């Protein structure tokens, strides 16, 4: 297993290199002149030329790439011109805000979906199961940016219960922040809740029909003990994998959700940076996001190896 873990660790090096390279190429391809963008519309041609020289834009692409790699290794992501502070400072300021809503929504999704999936599985083909599965199907198909608008329409515009924009401030008390969180979190939790409910149900169904569960029943164990202690434990590995995948995917949802609710996180930071042609910021924020994804996936894989040593890593990597 140590060998497998080491193999997995070595595997991420080329992936990271690809991530870094794709980010470099994509940001270079965004149309517009970064030097002109920094100086603003009033800049003269000479000023722009001087700035291009200063920013290293006249160097060969190869040299730019090497400089860029060197800086990344040093943890230097350059300076955002629209905010006029180092990119890294902006990112460390925004990441907690994105984590706040994405992690809260994931925890909420787990708390709702696992019991829901279990009950659906135990009462397979009941009205409860039927309704839960229809809701879950609608949930996985939900365009969350539309759901966000509908939540705003009902709870902010029509009922006036909850604020629809921004994040509030702890200076106005905890409720101010919490009330601003409710709609974005509800929006973000929808797809994970639906996904987890479906996978918990199907995984539980597979386990409950196993012989060892039948033999536990034959031995006269209480149904509650059988379900929650024995069956659930064996049904969890696939659920954990899916939770891990959603953890990494949570960011995709965050980009759209943050835009709708003007939540000051990484999503709004990146979309704003693209609009302003703030190349350094786009490059840094996109890179950090992608690297975070690689590491979360790594963590999930390692966790999976530990809880389920039977998994043959080679065949898992090849399968769909």
């Amino acid at each position, binding site marked *: 297993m140590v060998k497998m873990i080491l193999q997995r660790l070595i595997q991420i090096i*080329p*992936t990271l*290199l*690809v*991530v870094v*390279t*794709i980010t470099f190429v*994509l*940001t270079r*391809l*965004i*149309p517009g002149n970064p030097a002109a963008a920094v100086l603003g519309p009033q800049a003269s041609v000479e000023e722009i030329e001087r700035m291009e020289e200063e920013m290293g834009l006249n160097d060969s692409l190869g040299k730019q790439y090497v400089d860029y790699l060197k800086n990344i290794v040093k943890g230097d992501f350059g300076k955002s011109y629209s905010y006029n502070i180092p990119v890294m400072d902006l990112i460390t300021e925004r990441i907690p805000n994105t984590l706040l809503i994405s992690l809260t929504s994931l925890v909420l999704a787990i708390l709702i979906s696992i019991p829901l999936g279990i009950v659906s599985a135990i009462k397979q083909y009941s009205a409860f199961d039927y309704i839960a599965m229809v809701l879950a*199907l*609608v949930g*996985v*198909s*939900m*365009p969350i*940016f*539309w*759901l966000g*608008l*509908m939540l*705003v*329409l009902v709870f902010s*515009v029509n009922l006036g219960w909850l604020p629809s924009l921004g994040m509030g401030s702890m200076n106005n008390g905890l409720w101010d922040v919490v009330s601003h969180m409710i709609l974005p979190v509800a929006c973000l939790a929808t797809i994970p809740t639906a996904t987890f409910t*479906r*996978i918990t149900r*199907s995984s539980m169904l597979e386990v409950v029909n196993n012989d060892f569960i039948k033999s536990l029943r034959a031995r006269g164990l209480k149904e509650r003990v059988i379900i929650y202690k024995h069956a659930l434990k064996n049904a969890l590995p*696939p659920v954990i994998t899916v939770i891990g995948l959603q953890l990494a*995917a949570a*960011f*995709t949802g965050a*980009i*759209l959700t943050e*835009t*709708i609710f003007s939540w000051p996180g990484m999503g709004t930071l*990146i*979309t704003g940076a*693209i609009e302003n042609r703030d190349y350094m910021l*786009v490059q840094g924020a*996109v890179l950090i*996001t*992608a*690297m975070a*994804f*690689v590491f979360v*996936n790594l963590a999930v894989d390692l966790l999976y190896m530990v809880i389920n040593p039977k998994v043959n890593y080679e065949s898992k990597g*090849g*399968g*769909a």
Partner: protein
Amino acid sequence: MEHKKDSLGGQAHAVMLEKERKSNSAWNKIKRNKTAMLGLFIVVFMMILVIFAGILAPYDPNELSLGSTYLKPGSPGHIFGTDEFGRDLLSRIIYGSRISILVAVGATFVGATIGVLLGLVSGYAGGIVDSVIMRIMDGMMAFPFILLSIILMTILGTGVFNVILAVGIANIPNFARVVRGQVHIVKNEDYCKAVIGIGASHPRLLFKHILPNTLSPIIVYATLSTAGSIISEAALSFLGLGITPPTASWGNILRAGKETLNTAPHIATISGIFILLTVLGFNLLGDGIRDVLDPKMKK
């Protein structure tokens, strides 16, 4: 089976086998799957909108009528009401279906074509080729789908063709992985070894023998990917990066609806319902096809 053959005679047995074969055919299995049929019904309904938009839409989708802006749904002559320029919302939704579904199908086609090729080569060649292709796919997958599309759209600029390309490129890695995994299973089967044994060329083996045997997961994934691409188009247009007005797409109708959420909520509500329904339809159909074609993949 044997005793039945004796009692019923050879002919009757053949008829029975034929019946059994028919009831087990993919189509019959899908017919028995109620949710898949619901999905198919929704997809067919949307396809009818796409094909017969010109006949079904009561108005020209771009016809302005500044005297009757923001009419509520149910107004005479406008079941879904009108938008900020007095354009008939029903007609815009019907014409919007063309763009939204064209983009989704096109993006799936682009992603599938390139992804399948890469997956075939990667899985078949193995070794260093496989490693290089798969690491690039891993790297692409590290970018959140929507983020990759947003950056590609910024580079390419708005427009139908560019949305297809941007969403299509973001679709590539998943197809490549699905196909590569399948090739790994298929290429070690006896019939593939036999084909090599009789001296078939690599391309012949790859396209004539391996590709057809990887089709089931490709079909399943393509259906689900169409659902995802409808969301992607809508998301990009919603952010103002996809299809730009006056061309109607469900995403940009929703974007316009967002601006008037307080005064005319029906625009956002109705366009979103169509997105949700269509995505649901493709998802149900995809799940159903998966259950039928590949019971092992059933989750």
